[in-house]
């Protein structure tokens, strides 16, 4: 068979192949299992209160993908003769004793609650509020990430400090650290920044963030959108 006859046919076959390749190179969907249990989280807590003094409490609701959603929270006290609370979360000490403050959201038949204990006395010298949390981060992949951390309130900001036992793999391109309420995705997460320290003590100042605003520390390979490691921020 002459090559002048074959060539156009081969080019035609090749063109069809190329076209099919490009059609298969369209952007498709990767589905992520990102369900988390909905949560009410009381973000402003005290363990003690003086009679006739007040404390403003607050709570956030996170839906089934960890997104913060504005909802109507119902506040109640287990004993109104010790402390009562308004619909806006303002607690007032009434009588000596201990009671539980509840924050509740009802979504259909599902009731989601958070609570804390409060002691009311005649005089309170030190009102303890949560100013520090600590925990560990660990790998969720084949890339090493480990170490302990502390999360401290500094005015309106947070200081996240990793301790001397921290280490992370420095071969992974684009490793970022986030605060999140869903440990499967970075959707709605607060990006702290690119990881540039891979061993030892270092810290991140996170502006305008509360210590109870997030439930997880996430290490994500941002270019590939893959979780590399995580740490659970303990609840109050």
């Amino acid at each position, binding site marked *: 068979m002459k090559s002048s006859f074959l060539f156009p046919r081969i080019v035609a076959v*090749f063109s069809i192949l190329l076209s099919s390749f490009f059609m*298969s*190179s369209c952007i498709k969907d990767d589905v992520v299992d990102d369900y988390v249990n909905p949560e009410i989280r009381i973000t402003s807590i005290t363990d003690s209160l003086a009679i006739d003094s007040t404390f403003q409490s607050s709570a956030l609701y996170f839906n089934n993908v960890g997104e913060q959603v504005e909802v109507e929270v119902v506040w109640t006290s287990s004993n109104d003769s010790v402390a009562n609370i308004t619909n806006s979360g303002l607690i007032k000490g009434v009588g000596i004793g201990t009671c539980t403050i509840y924050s509740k959201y009802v979504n259909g038949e599902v009731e989601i609650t958070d609570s804390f204990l409060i002691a009311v006395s005649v005089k309170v010298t030190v009102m303890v509020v949560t100013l520090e949390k600590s925990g560990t981060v660990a790998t969720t992949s084949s890339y090493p990430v480990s170490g302990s951390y502390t999360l401290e309130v500094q005015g309106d900001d947070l200081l996240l400090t990793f301790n001397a036992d921290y280490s992370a*793999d*420095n*071969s*992974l391109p684009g490793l970022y650290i986030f605060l999140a309420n869903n440990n499967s995705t970075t959707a709605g997460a607060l990006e702290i920044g690119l990881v540039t320290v*891979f061993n030892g003590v270092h810290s991140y100042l996170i502006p305008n963030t509360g210590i109870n605003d997030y439930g997880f520390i996430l290490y994500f390979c941002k*270019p590939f*959108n893959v979780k590399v490691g995580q740490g659970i921020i303990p609840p109050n």
Partner: protein
Amino acid sequence: MAFPSFCGGPWVQKKGKSYFKLSEWWLVFDEHYTSAGLKDPNVTTGVYNTFLYGEYGITNRFTGIVSSALFSRNYMNNLVSGTTGKTIVAGDAVNYLGDTDLGFKYQLSKKDAKVPMALSIVLGLPIGKSAAGDAMNLQTGDGEFNQIIQFDIGKGFTVFKKRQAYYALYGGFNNRSNGFSEEIRFGGEFGIEFFSKKLWVIARVNGIESMKNGATAETVTSTSIFANNSEYISYSVEVNQYFSNKIGLSVGLASALRGEIIAAAPSFSAGIFLDFTK
């Protein structure tokens, strides 16, 4: 003993002879080899390259080689919530030129040597984009200038009732710029013909070992197959079928035996070649 240009090895073109191949190479992966050599998932990523490859005999011992990605597409899928169905991270794509390799192969051994040897120099020109897309995480090139020196040795022989075959081995060194680690490259191949040299089947093993003397993630944020400190040992099979003395089709499949910081999925290629060496 002479071998077609789709065979690797130390064989060079005769003066004025040439070989061209237009091919598509593609790779779609949702896993990658980690720094520990294990497989981890990633957002599905595709790389499609349209290559033009050419060889030309400048002299009987000196062959010029060009391998140019005329078109390169790199895309990443959307990340979609399985709970809400909403897009979490929108996919993205870049379409552009890829990188181009310019090479020169010099035959060290004498004509008709029993074990021919050749030395090659390849310059990898960073023509492609090394950071594209909204997140700057897509690439059609590695953004660095490769300088590869390679030594090839091979031998032709006959097997199975005078069926022509060959083996070839190579070793090379890739000096890289822009903080990328240098690389040691090595490999070997075995090829055999069928149907009076109309069909050639070639099996290859290729390897890259990074010297890991370049930048790390502390300073580099590149990704994909162009990530720094990548390593692999791969195997591949290529079938080349002549339809005439000068025209043929080539198809190939390659996969990794081991790797670090590189895609963990088979790559495919298909192309048409024009052989003006006969």
